[in-house]
Protein backbone atom coordinates (compact mmCIF):
# COMPACT_ATOMS: atom_id res chain seq x y z
CA UNK A 1 0.00 0.00 0.00
CA UNK A 2 0.99 3.61 -0.07
CA UNK A 3 1.91 3.74 3.61
CA UNK A 4 5.38 5.11 4.10
CA UNK A 5 6.35 2.45 6.60
CA UNK A 6 5.46 -1.18 6.39
CA UNK A 7 3.97 -3.07 9.28
CA UNK A 8 7.17 -4.46 10.68
CA UNK A 9 9.02 -1.18 10.45
CA UNK A 10 6.13 0.46 12.25
CA UNK A 11 6.06 -2.20 14.97
CA UNK A 12 9.81 -1.95 15.39
CA UNK A 13 9.52 1.83 15.57
CA UNK A 14 6.85 1.54 18.24
CA UNK A 15 8.99 -0.87 20.25
CA UNK A 16 11.95 1.51 20.03
CA UNK A 17 9.74 4.44 20.98
CA UNK A 18 8.36 2.50 23.93
CA UNK A 19 11.88 1.92 25.21
CA UNK A 20 12.88 5.53 24.51
CA UNK A 21 9.85 6.84 26.38
CA UNK A 22 10.55 4.60 29.32
CA UNK A 23 14.15 5.82 29.42
CA UNK A 24 13.08 9.45 29.10
CA UNK A 25 10.58 9.11 31.91
CA UNK A 26 13.06 7.31 34.14
CA UNK A 27 15.50 10.19 33.64
CA UNK A 28 12.69 12.61 34.30
CA UNK A 29 11.70 10.81 37.51
CA UNK A 30 15.32 10.65 38.58
CA UNK A 31 15.56 14.40 38.15
CA UNK A 32 12.27 14.96 39.96
CA UNK A 33 13.45 12.80 42.84
CA UNK A 34 17.19 13.16 43.12
CA UNK A 35 17.32 16.72 41.77
CA UNK A 36 15.53 17.83 44.91
CA UNK A 37 17.95 15.83 47.00
CA UNK A 38 20.85 17.50 45.21
CA UNK A 39 19.49 20.93 46.07
CA UNK A 40 19.01 20.02 49.72
CA UNK A 41 22.42 18.36 49.81
CA UNK A 42 24.15 21.44 48.41
CA UNK A 43 22.25 23.70 50.78
CA UNK A 44 23.10 21.55 53.77
CA UNK A 45 26.75 21.33 52.73
CA UNK A 46 26.99 25.12 52.43
CA UNK A 47 25.71 25.51 55.98
CA UNK A 48 27.82 22.92 57.73
CA UNK A 49 31.09 23.54 55.87
CA UNK A 50 32.54 20.22 54.87
CA UNK A 51 30.54 17.96 57.13
CA UNK A 52 27.85 16.07 55.27
CA UNK A 53 24.60 16.69 57.04
CA UNK A 54 22.26 15.47 54.33
CA UNK A 55 23.16 11.84 53.67
CA UNK A 56 20.12 9.91 52.61
CA UNK A 57 18.38 10.96 49.34
CA UNK A 58 14.94 10.44 50.82
CA UNK A 59 13.04 12.48 48.20
CA UNK A 60 14.56 10.41 45.41
CA UNK A 61 13.80 7.09 47.06
CA UNK A 62 10.24 8.02 47.98
CA UNK A 63 9.51 9.51 44.56
CA UNK A 64 10.97 6.50 42.74
CA UNK A 65 8.98 3.99 44.74
CA UNK A 66 5.72 5.91 44.46
CA UNK A 67 6.27 6.40 40.72
CA UNK A 68 7.01 2.70 40.19
CA UNK A 69 3.91 1.59 42.10
CA UNK A 70 1.54 4.10 40.48
CA UNK A 71 2.92 3.42 37.00
CA UNK A 72 2.60 -0.35 37.43
CA UNK A 73 -0.96 -0.16 38.71
CA UNK A 74 -2.10 2.16 35.93
CA UNK A 75 -0.29 0.05 33.34
CA UNK A 76 -2.26 -3.00 34.49
CA UNK A 77 -5.56 -1.22 35.15
CA UNK A 78 -5.31 1.65 32.65
CA UNK A 79 -7.36 0.17 29.79
CA UNK A 80 -10.21 -0.83 32.14
CA UNK A 81 -10.14 2.59 33.74
CA UNK A 82 -10.36 4.31 30.38
CA UNK A 83 -13.34 2.16 29.41
CA UNK A 84 -14.94 2.69 32.79
CA UNK A 85 -14.51 6.47 32.61
CA UNK A 86 -16.35 6.56 29.27
CA UNK A 87 -19.19 4.41 30.61
CA UNK A 88 -18.58 1.77 27.93
CA UNK A 89 -20.45 -1.52 28.21
CA UNK A 90 -19.10 -4.73 26.75
CA UNK A 91 -21.10 -6.20 23.93
CA UNK A 92 -21.48 -9.85 24.96
CA UNK A 93 -24.88 -10.77 23.60
CA UNK A 94 -25.68 -8.36 20.75
CA UNK A 95 -29.40 -7.62 20.45
CA UNK A 96 -30.10 -5.28 17.55
CA UNK A 97 -28.95 -5.75 13.98
CA UNK A 98 -26.53 -2.86 14.41
CA UNK A 99 -24.89 -4.50 17.41
CA UNK A 100 -24.66 -7.82 15.61
CA UNK A 101 -23.04 -6.03 12.69
CA UNK A 102 -20.53 -4.43 15.02
CA UNK A 103 -19.56 -7.75 16.58
CA UNK A 104 -19.27 -9.32 13.13
CA UNK A 105 -17.22 -6.46 11.75
CA UNK A 106 -14.79 -6.62 14.68
CA UNK A 107 -14.36 -10.34 14.07
CA UNK A 108 -13.86 -9.76 10.34
CA UNK A 109 -11.13 -7.22 10.98
CA UNK A 110 -9.46 -9.48 13.54
CA UNK A 111 -9.32 -12.16 10.85
CA UNK A 112 -7.96 -9.70 8.28
CA UNK A 113 -5.23 -8.62 10.72
CA UNK A 114 -4.54 -12.21 11.80
CA UNK A 115 -5.01 -11.27 15.47
CA UNK A 116 -7.19 -12.58 18.31
CA UNK A 117 -10.61 -10.98 18.42
CA UNK A 118 -10.57 -7.93 20.70
CA UNK A 119 -13.35 -7.25 23.19
CA UNK A 120 -16.07 -5.03 21.77
CA UNK A 121 -17.56 -2.14 23.77
CA UNK A 122 -20.36 0.30 23.09
CA UNK A 123 -20.61 3.81 24.55
CA UNK A 124 -24.07 5.39 24.75
CA UNK A 125 -23.23 8.74 23.21
CA UNK A 126 -24.90 10.38 20.20
CA UNK A 127 -21.61 11.76 18.80
CA UNK A 128 -19.89 9.34 16.37
CA UNK A 129 -16.47 8.29 17.65
CA UNK A 130 -14.38 5.20 18.38
CA UNK A 131 -11.19 4.21 20.17
CA UNK A 132 -8.98 1.24 20.95
CA UNK A 133 -7.08 0.53 24.13
CA UNK A 134 -5.14 -2.30 25.75
CA UNK A 135 -1.60 -3.46 26.37
CA UNK A 136 -1.24 -5.81 23.40
CA UNK A 137 -3.34 -7.75 20.92
CA UNK A 138 -4.66 -10.21 23.51
CA UNK A 139 -5.85 -7.53 25.95
CA UNK A 140 -7.09 -5.12 23.28
CA UNK A 141 -10.54 -3.53 23.48
CA UNK A 142 -12.35 -1.61 20.76
CA UNK A 143 -15.11 0.81 21.74
CA UNK A 144 -17.51 2.70 19.48
CA UNK A 145 -20.30 5.14 20.32
CA UNK A 146 -23.94 4.44 19.53
CA UNK A 147 -23.79 7.63 17.47
CA UNK A 148 -21.26 6.01 15.17
CA UNK A 149 -23.44 2.93 14.74
CA UNK A 150 -26.37 5.14 13.81
CA UNK A 151 -24.52 7.30 11.29
CA UNK A 152 -22.29 5.00 9.24
CA UNK A 153 -23.17 2.11 6.96
CA UNK A 154 -21.62 -1.33 7.24
CA UNK A 155 -18.66 -0.61 4.97
CA UNK A 156 -17.81 2.57 6.84
CA UNK A 157 -18.16 0.83 10.21
CA UNK A 158 -15.76 -1.78 8.90
CA UNK A 159 -13.32 0.96 7.91
CA UNK A 160 -13.49 2.60 11.35
CA UNK A 161 -12.98 -0.72 13.13
CA UNK A 162 -10.11 -1.47 10.73
CA UNK A 163 -8.50 1.84 11.75
CA UNK A 164 -8.77 0.83 15.42
CA UNK A 165 -7.47 -2.64 14.57
CA UNK A 166 -4.54 -0.84 12.95
CA UNK A 167 -3.78 0.78 16.32
CA UNK A 168 -3.86 -2.67 17.91
CA UNK A 169 -1.69 -4.32 15.28
CA UNK A 170 0.84 -1.49 15.12
CA UNK A 171 1.20 -1.75 18.93
CA UNK A 172 0.00 1.84 19.27
CA UNK A 173 -2.32 0.74 22.07
CA UNK A 174 0.64 -0.43 24.13
CA UNK A 175 2.57 2.79 23.66
CA UNK A 176 -0.52 4.85 24.44
CA UNK A 177 -1.32 2.92 27.61
CA UNK A 178 2.28 3.23 28.74
CA UNK A 179 2.41 6.96 28.07
CA UNK A 180 -0.95 7.50 29.73
CA UNK A 181 0.22 5.74 32.87
CA UNK A 182 3.52 7.66 32.93
CA UNK A 183 1.81 11.00 32.34
CA UNK A 184 -0.59 10.11 35.13
CA UNK A 185 2.30 9.45 37.50
CA UNK A 186 3.88 12.79 36.67
CA UNK A 187 0.65 14.67 37.33
CA UNK A 188 0.19 12.87 40.66
CA UNK A 189 3.80 13.42 41.72
CA UNK A 190 3.95 17.03 40.67
CA UNK A 191 0.78 17.82 42.62
CA UNK A 192 1.89 15.87 45.67
CA UNK A 193 5.38 17.30 45.77
CA UNK A 194 4.14 20.82 45.22
CA UNK A 195 2.09 20.40 48.39
CA UNK A 196 5.01 18.90 50.30
CA UNK A 197 7.31 21.76 49.30
CA UNK A 198 5.07 24.37 50.81
CA UNK A 199 5.61 22.64 54.13
CA UNK A 200 9.34 22.07 53.91
CA UNK A 201 10.48 25.21 52.11
CA UNK A 202 12.25 26.46 55.24
CA UNK A 203 14.85 23.70 54.96
CA UNK A 204 16.49 25.62 52.15
CA UNK A 205 15.80 29.08 53.50
CA UNK A 206 18.52 31.61 54.15
CA UNK A 207 18.45 31.12 57.89
CA UNK A 208 22.01 29.73 57.77
CA UNK A 209 24.99 31.98 57.86
CA UNK A 210 24.96 35.18 55.83
CA UNK A 211 26.50 35.10 52.39
CA UNK A 212 26.49 31.35 52.10
CA UNK A 213 29.06 31.10 49.32
CA UNK A 214 29.00 29.40 45.92
CA UNK A 215 27.50 26.18 47.24
CA UNK A 216 24.35 27.93 48.34
CA UNK A 217 24.09 29.69 44.98
CA UNK A 218 24.38 26.31 43.24
CA UNK A 219 21.77 24.92 45.59
CA UNK A 220 19.45 27.79 44.77
CA UNK A 221 19.91 27.33 41.02
CA UNK A 222 19.29 23.58 41.18
CA UNK A 223 16.30 24.17 43.41
CA UNK A 224 14.75 26.75 41.09
CA UNK A 225 15.25 24.49 38.07
CA UNK A 226 13.75 21.63 40.01
CA UNK A 227 10.66 23.60 41.01
CA UNK A 228 10.18 24.82 37.44
CA UNK A 229 10.27 21.25 36.13
CA UNK A 230 7.86 20.23 38.82
CA UNK A 231 5.39 22.92 37.77
CA UNK A 232 5.78 22.38 34.03
CA UNK A 233 5.96 18.56 34.13
CA UNK A 234 2.25 17.86 33.61
CA UNK A 235 2.02 20.24 30.63
CA UNK A 236 5.20 19.01 28.99
CA UNK A 237 4.30 15.36 29.37
CA UNK A 238 0.81 15.96 27.94
CA UNK A 239 2.21 17.79 24.93
CA UNK A 240 4.65 14.95 24.33
CA UNK A 241 1.85 12.39 24.56
CA UNK A 242 -0.19 14.37 22.05
CA UNK A 243 2.67 14.55 19.58
CA UNK A 244 3.10 10.80 19.77
CA UNK A 245 -0.57 10.19 19.21
CA UNK A 246 -0.87 12.50 16.21
CA UNK A 247 1.38 10.89 13.63
CA UNK A 248 0.00 7.51 14.66
CA UNK A 249 -3.41 8.44 13.21
CA UNK A 250 -2.10 8.63 9.65
CA UNK A 251 -0.49 5.23 10.05
CA UNK A 252 -3.62 3.68 11.52
CA UNK A 253 -5.57 5.13 8.59
CA UNK A 254 -3.13 3.47 6.21
CA UNK A 255 -3.20 0.16 8.09
CA UNK A 256 -6.99 0.26 8.17
CA UNK A 257 -7.07 0.80 4.44
CA UNK A 258 -4.65 -2.09 4.01
CA UNK A 259 -6.90 -4.40 6.05
CA UNK A 260 -10.14 -3.58 4.23
CA UNK A 261 -8.48 -2.77 0.88
CA UNK A 262 -11.09 -0.04 0.82
CA UNK A 263 -9.63 3.39 1.66
CA UNK A 264 -12.67 5.17 0.20
CA UNK A 265 -14.92 3.80 2.95
CA UNK A 266 -12.71 5.21 5.70
CA UNK A 267 -12.62 8.57 3.92
CA UNK A 268 -16.41 8.76 3.81
CA UNK A 269 -16.66 7.54 7.43
CA UNK A 270 -14.30 10.31 8.54
CA UNK A 271 -16.34 12.81 6.56
CA UNK A 272 -19.52 11.71 8.36
CA UNK A 273 -17.77 11.85 11.74
CA UNK A 274 -16.54 15.33 10.95
CA UNK A 275 -19.92 16.71 9.94
CA UNK A 276 -21.34 15.46 13.25
CA UNK A 277 -18.49 17.11 15.08
CA UNK A 278 -19.77 17.88 18.53
CA UNK A 279 -18.08 17.14 21.81
CA UNK A 280 -18.40 13.46 22.71
CA UNK A 281 -19.56 14.13 26.24
CA UNK A 282 -18.76 10.69 27.59
CA UNK A 283 -15.13 10.75 26.55
CA UNK A 284 -13.04 12.89 28.85
CA UNK A 285 -9.69 14.48 28.17
CA UNK A 286 -7.81 11.46 29.49
CA UNK A 287 -8.95 9.27 26.61
CA UNK A 288 -8.98 11.93 23.89
CA UNK A 289 -5.73 10.91 22.27
CA UNK A 290 -7.05 7.36 21.76
CA UNK A 291 -10.06 8.32 19.64
CA UNK A 292 -10.42 8.22 15.86
CA UNK A 293 -11.55 11.88 15.94
CA UNK A 294 -10.97 14.40 18.69
CA UNK A 295 -13.88 13.86 21.11
CA UNK A 296 -13.52 17.35 22.55
CA UNK A 297 -14.38 18.94 19.21
CA UNK A 298 -11.52 21.39 19.52
CA UNK A 299 -10.99 23.75 16.61
CA UNK A 300 -7.25 23.34 16.93
CA UNK A 301 -7.47 19.90 15.30
CA UNK A 302 -8.97 21.31 12.15
CA UNK A 303 -6.16 23.74 11.51
CA UNK A 304 -2.66 23.29 10.36
CA UNK A 305 0.28 25.22 11.70
CA UNK A 306 2.63 25.73 14.61
CA UNK A 307 0.12 25.99 17.43
CA UNK A 308 -2.01 23.18 16.06
CA UNK A 309 1.10 21.04 15.72
CA UNK A 310 1.79 21.58 19.38
CA UNK A 311 -1.65 21.21 20.91
CA UNK A 312 -3.76 18.97 18.70
CA UNK A 313 -4.09 15.26 19.43
CA UNK A 314 -5.18 14.54 15.87
CA UNK A 315 -3.99 15.59 12.43
CA UNK A 316 -6.39 17.82 10.49
CA UNK A 317 -9.35 15.78 9.27
CA UNK A 318 -9.21 17.29 5.78
CA UNK A 319 -5.62 16.09 5.38
CA UNK A 320 -6.49 12.57 6.48
CA UNK A 321 -9.42 12.40 4.09
CA UNK A 322 -7.28 13.70 1.22
CA UNK A 323 -4.64 11.05 1.85
CA UNK A 324 -7.25 8.27 1.94
CA UNK A 325 -8.87 9.51 -1.26
CA UNK A 326 -5.43 9.47 -2.82
CA UNK A 327 -5.06 5.82 -1.82
CA UNK A 328 -8.50 5.00 -3.24
CA UNK A 329 -7.55 6.71 -6.49
CA UNK A 330 -4.31 4.71 -6.72
CA UNK A 331 -6.28 1.53 -6.10
CA UNK A 332 -8.74 2.28 -8.87
CA UNK A 333 -5.91 3.19 -11.20
CA UNK A 334 -4.11 -0.06 -10.43
CA UNK A 335 -7.26 -2.05 -11.08
CA UNK A 336 -7.77 -0.24 -14.37
CA UNK A 337 -11.23 0.89 -13.31
CA UNK A 338 -10.74 4.57 -13.95
CA UNK A 339 -12.49 6.08 -16.93
CA UNK A 340 -9.92 7.13 -19.53
CA UNK A 341 -9.27 10.82 -19.15
Amino acid sequence: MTAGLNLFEQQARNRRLTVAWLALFILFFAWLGFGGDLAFYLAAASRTEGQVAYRFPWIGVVVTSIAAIVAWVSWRKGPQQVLWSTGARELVAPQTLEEKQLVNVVEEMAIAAGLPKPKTYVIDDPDPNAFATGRDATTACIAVTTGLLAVVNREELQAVVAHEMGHVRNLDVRLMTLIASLVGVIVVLSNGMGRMLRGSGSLLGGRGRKGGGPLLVAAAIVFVLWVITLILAPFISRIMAMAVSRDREYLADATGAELTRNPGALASALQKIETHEAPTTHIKEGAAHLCIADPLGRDVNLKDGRLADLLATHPPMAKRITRLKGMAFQQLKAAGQLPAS
Partner: protein
Amino acid sequence: MGLIVFLIVVVVVLVWVASAYNGLIALKNQTVNAWKQIDVQLKRRHDLIPNLVNTVKGSMNFEKDTLQAVVDARSKAMASGGGVRETAAAEGALTGALGKLFVVMERYPDLKSSQNVRDLQEELSSTENKIAFARQLYNDVATGYNTKQQQFPTNLVAGLAKAEHAELWELEDKAEGAVPQVDLSLQKPQG
Protein backbone atom coordinates in the same frame (compact mmCIF):
# COMPACT_ATOMS: atom_id res chain seq x y z
CA MET B 1 44.77 -17.51 15.60
CA GLY B 2 43.60 -19.12 12.37
CA LEU B 3 41.74 -21.74 14.37
CA ILE B 4 39.88 -19.12 16.38
CA VAL B 5 38.80 -17.30 13.24
CA PHE B 6 37.67 -20.59 11.73
CA LEU B 7 35.68 -21.47 14.85
CA ILE B 8 34.03 -18.06 14.91
CA VAL B 9 33.04 -18.43 11.26
CA VAL B 10 31.61 -21.89 11.96
CA VAL B 11 29.60 -20.61 14.91
CA VAL B 12 28.28 -17.64 12.94
CA VAL B 13 27.23 -19.93 10.07
CA LEU B 14 25.54 -22.37 12.45
CA VAL B 15 23.65 -19.59 14.22
CA TRP B 16 22.51 -18.24 10.87
CA VAL B 17 21.38 -21.68 9.66
CA ALA B 18 19.41 -22.20 12.86
CA SER B 19 17.70 -18.83 12.69
CA ALA B 20 16.92 -19.12 8.98
CA TYR B 21 15.54 -22.63 9.57
CA ASN B 22 13.40 -21.45 12.47
CA GLY B 23 12.18 -18.49 10.45
CA LEU B 24 11.04 -20.77 7.65
CA ILE B 25 9.31 -23.14 10.06
CA ALA B 26 7.51 -20.22 11.70
CA LEU B 27 6.33 -18.98 8.30
CA LYS B 28 5.22 -22.47 7.33
CA ASN B 29 3.14 -22.79 10.50
CA GLN B 30 1.67 -19.34 9.94
CA THR B 31 0.64 -20.41 6.45
CA VAL B 32 -0.97 -23.61 7.73
CA ASN B 33 -2.72 -21.65 10.46
CA ALA B 34 -4.00 -19.02 8.02
CA TRP B 35 -5.42 -21.81 5.88
CA LYS B 36 -7.20 -23.26 8.92
CA GLN B 37 -8.80 -19.87 9.52
CA ILE B 38 -10.31 -20.05 6.04
CA ASP B 39 -11.52 -23.57 6.75
CA VAL B 40 -13.32 -22.47 9.93
CA GLN B 41 -15.21 -19.79 8.02
CA LEU B 42 -16.02 -22.07 5.09
CA LYS B 43 -17.52 -24.60 7.47
CA ARG B 44 -19.56 -21.85 9.11
CA ARG B 45 -20.91 -20.86 5.70
CA HIS B 46 -21.84 -24.46 4.90
CA ASP B 47 -23.72 -24.63 8.22
CA LEU B 48 -25.60 -21.38 7.65
CA ILE B 49 -26.84 -22.06 4.13
CA PRO B 50 -29.50 -24.70 4.99
CA ASN B 51 -31.01 -22.24 7.49
CA LEU B 52 -31.23 -19.53 4.86
CA VAL B 53 -32.63 -21.86 2.22
CA ASN B 54 -35.33 -23.16 4.60
CA THR B 55 -36.28 -19.67 5.71
CA VAL B 56 -36.69 -18.22 2.24
CA LYS B 57 -38.02 -21.34 0.50
CA GLY B 58 -41.68 -20.58 1.26
CA SER B 59 -41.69 -17.04 -0.07
CA MET B 60 -39.40 -17.68 -2.99
CA ASN B 61 -40.98 -20.61 -4.75
CA PHE B 62 -40.64 -18.78 -8.07
CA GLU B 63 -36.89 -18.86 -7.75
CA LYS B 64 -36.38 -22.61 -7.47
CA ASP B 65 -33.42 -22.55 -9.84
CA THR B 66 -31.53 -19.95 -7.86
CA LEU B 67 -32.11 -21.85 -4.60
CA GLN B 68 -31.20 -25.17 -6.17
CA ALA B 69 -27.98 -23.66 -7.53
CA VAL B 70 -27.00 -22.64 -4.00
CA VAL B 71 -27.81 -26.08 -2.59
CA ASP B 72 -25.87 -27.82 -5.36
CA ALA B 73 -22.89 -25.51 -5.04
CA ARG B 74 -22.86 -26.11 -1.28
CA SER B 75 -22.81 -29.90 -1.58
CA LYS B 76 -20.12 -29.69 -4.25
CA ALA B 77 -18.03 -27.43 -2.04
CA MET B 78 -18.44 -29.74 0.94
CA ALA B 79 -17.44 -32.75 -1.17
CA SER B 80 -14.32 -31.12 -2.64
CA GLY B 81 -10.93 -32.32 -1.51
CA GLY B 82 -8.48 -30.45 0.68
CA GLY B 83 -6.38 -28.91 -2.09
CA VAL B 84 -6.18 -25.15 -2.41
CA ARG B 85 -7.17 -25.12 -6.07
CA GLU B 86 -10.23 -27.41 -5.79
CA THR B 87 -11.45 -25.68 -2.65
CA ALA B 88 -11.00 -22.29 -4.26
CA ALA B 89 -12.96 -23.31 -7.35
CA ALA B 90 -15.84 -24.98 -5.48
CA GLU B 91 -16.13 -22.20 -2.89
CA GLY B 92 -15.90 -19.57 -5.61
CA ALA B 93 -18.90 -21.17 -7.32
CA LEU B 94 -20.78 -21.14 -4.01
CA THR B 95 -19.95 -17.47 -3.49
CA GLY B 96 -21.33 -16.75 -6.95
CA ALA B 97 -24.55 -18.72 -6.35
CA LEU B 98 -25.10 -16.98 -2.99
CA GLY B 99 -24.49 -13.59 -4.56
CA LYS B 100 -27.20 -14.31 -7.15
CA LEU B 101 -29.58 -15.42 -4.39
CA PHE B 102 -28.99 -12.18 -2.49
CA VAL B 103 -29.69 -10.14 -5.61
CA VAL B 104 -32.90 -12.07 -6.22
CA MET B 105 -33.96 -11.67 -2.57
CA GLU B 106 -33.89 -7.89 -3.05
CA ARG B 107 -37.04 -8.28 -5.18
CA TYR B 108 -39.08 -9.63 -2.26
CA PRO B 109 -39.87 -6.76 0.12
CA ASP B 110 -41.58 -8.95 2.74
CA LEU B 111 -38.49 -11.19 2.84
CA LYS B 112 -36.22 -8.21 3.29
CA SER B 113 -38.32 -6.81 6.12
CA SER B 114 -38.37 -10.09 8.06
CA GLN B 115 -36.13 -9.85 11.12
CA ASN B 116 -35.12 -13.48 10.82
CA VAL B 117 -34.04 -13.12 7.20
CA ARG B 118 -32.16 -9.91 7.91
CA ASP B 119 -30.26 -11.57 10.75
CA LEU B 120 -29.45 -14.56 8.58
CA GLN B 121 -28.38 -12.32 5.73
CA GLU B 122 -26.12 -10.34 8.05
CA GLU B 123 -24.60 -13.58 9.34
CA LEU B 124 -24.00 -14.86 5.82
CA SER B 125 -22.65 -11.53 4.55
CA SER B 126 -20.32 -11.42 7.51
CA THR B 127 -19.19 -14.97 6.87
CA GLU B 128 -18.58 -14.07 3.23
CA ASN B 129 -16.45 -11.16 4.43
CA LYS B 130 -14.61 -13.35 6.91
CA ILE B 131 -13.82 -15.83 4.14
CA ALA B 132 -12.58 -12.99 1.96
CA PHE B 133 -10.40 -11.53 4.75
CA ALA B 134 -9.10 -14.93 5.82
CA ARG B 135 -8.19 -15.56 2.17
CA GLN B 136 -6.49 -12.17 1.98
CA LEU B 137 -4.44 -12.99 5.08
CA TYR B 138 -3.65 -16.48 3.80
CA ASN B 139 -2.45 -15.12 0.47
CA ASP B 140 -0.30 -12.49 2.19
CA VAL B 141 1.26 -15.01 4.58
CA ALA B 142 1.74 -17.63 1.87
CA THR B 143 3.35 -15.06 -0.44
CA GLY B 144 5.76 -14.11 2.34
CA TYR B 145 6.56 -17.78 2.89
CA ASN B 146 7.09 -18.43 -0.82
CA THR B 147 9.28 -15.37 -1.24
CA LYS B 148 11.40 -16.30 1.75
CA GLN B 149 12.10 -19.83 0.57
CA GLN B 150 13.11 -18.61 -2.88
CA GLN B 151 15.29 -15.74 -1.76
CA PHE B 152 19.03 -16.10 -1.38
CA PRO B 153 20.46 -17.12 1.06
CA THR B 154 17.38 -18.53 2.83
CA ASN B 155 16.80 -20.85 -0.15
CA LEU B 156 19.91 -22.79 0.95
CA VAL B 157 18.09 -24.11 4.03
CA ALA B 158 14.68 -24.45 2.34
CA GLY B 159 15.30 -28.14 1.68
CA LEU B 160 16.37 -28.69 5.26
CA ALA B 161 13.15 -27.11 6.55
CA LYS B 162 11.11 -29.13 4.02
CA ALA B 163 9.70 -25.87 2.71
CA GLU B 164 7.30 -26.27 -0.17
CA HIS B 165 5.70 -23.72 -2.42
CA ALA B 166 2.35 -22.75 -0.88
CA GLU B 167 -0.40 -22.39 -3.43
CA LEU B 168 -2.27 -19.09 -3.38
CA TRP B 169 -6.04 -18.89 -3.32
CA GLU B 170 -6.70 -17.05 -6.52
CA LEU B 171 -10.07 -16.03 -7.83
CA GLU B 172 -10.85 -18.18 -10.84
CA ASP B 173 -11.72 -15.44 -13.26
CA LYS B 174 -12.77 -11.83 -13.50
CA ALA B 175 -16.49 -12.67 -13.44
CA GLU B 176 -16.18 -14.34 -10.06
CA GLY B 177 -13.92 -11.63 -8.82
CA ALA B 178 -16.72 -9.19 -9.47
CA VAL B 179 -19.29 -11.08 -7.37
CA PRO B 180 -18.10 -9.97 -3.91
CA GLN B 181 -18.48 -6.37 -5.06
CA VAL B 182 -22.17 -7.00 -5.67
CA ASP B 183 -22.24 -8.41 -2.10
CA LEU B 184 -20.71 -5.28 -0.68
CA SER B 185 -23.34 -3.01 -2.15
CA LEU B 186 -26.01 -5.25 -0.63
CA GLN B 187 -24.56 -4.96 2.83
CA LYS B 188 -25.47 -1.35 3.19
CA PRO B 189 -28.60 -1.29 5.32
CA GLN B 190 -29.44 2.15 4.00
CA GLY B 191 -27.92 4.33 1.30
